[in-house]
């Protein structure tokens, strides 16, 4: 089963890298923003924070040692509180931007400057 999961992951990664899975516009807010051709800062920071969190968690899992009374590892490693905080903050920034755009704060700021 593990071999099957790895094979599926490799297949999906291969398709994603060769264009077999559509990743177009993953860093844009919407089609209008996509046409401008530049990535959204909130999405870039969310992607970077997510990849960093996953990398740190996988490293922790690989370096995990059994508990004092056990000979084998019996649980997945706990995610560090800092990791959870980073992840939550990153999602918070992303959602704040989205809520801000929804409430039209951009035009509000513009009108405030006029």
């Amino acid at each position, binding site marked *: *089963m*593990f071999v*099957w*999961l*790895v*094979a*599926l*992951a490799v*297949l*999906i990664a291969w*398709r994603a890298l060769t264009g*077999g*899975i*559509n*990743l*177009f*516009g*993953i*860093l*844009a807010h*919407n*089609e209008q923003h*996509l046409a401008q051709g530049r990535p959204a800062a909130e*999405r870039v920071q*969310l*992607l970077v924070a*997510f990849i960093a*969190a*996953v990398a740190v*968690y*996988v490293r922790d*899992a690989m370096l995990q040692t059994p508990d004092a009374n056990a000979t*084998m*590892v*019996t*649980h*997945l*490693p*706990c*995610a*560090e*509180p800092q*990791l*959870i905080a980073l*992840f*939550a903050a990153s*999602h918070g920034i*992303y*959602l704040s931007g*989205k*809520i801000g755009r*929804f*409430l*039209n*704060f951009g*035009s*509000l700021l513009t*009108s*405030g400057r006029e």
Partner: protein
Amino acid sequence: MSQWTQLSWYVAIALIVVIMGAAAVTLWLIAAGNINIKNMLEEPDSQKASLSRFQFLIFTFVVAGLFLLLSIESGTFVTVPNSVLMLIGISAGSYVVSKGITAGAKGSPATNAAAHATAAAASAAAAEIHATAARAAADSVKR
């Protein structure tokens, strides 16, 4: 070995064969292109890939992979700590809120009207503050 124990072994082996067979067939169909996964990261009403779906995909492989790896290594099902469930929950919660906002933005005229009314009220308040500040500045210049 009792008759029931022997029967349960046969059933277990048959179930494993069925599940592994279904998994192998699914993998083969994806590899052969009979199951189309090109649009798996797109939202139904958009041509653009979704970052939330991408996160879910990676999370699923990482957590399921580690779970399987450690379970096979230890010979028993390992437990999943609450902190990991919290990470998945943050990701899922963010996805739900994000889709709610998007649906609200595209959705009912009432929602849009309410959002625009809020923005207009805030804009009017900002303009009022500006006008007050301008009057105060003009007064101080006169003095």
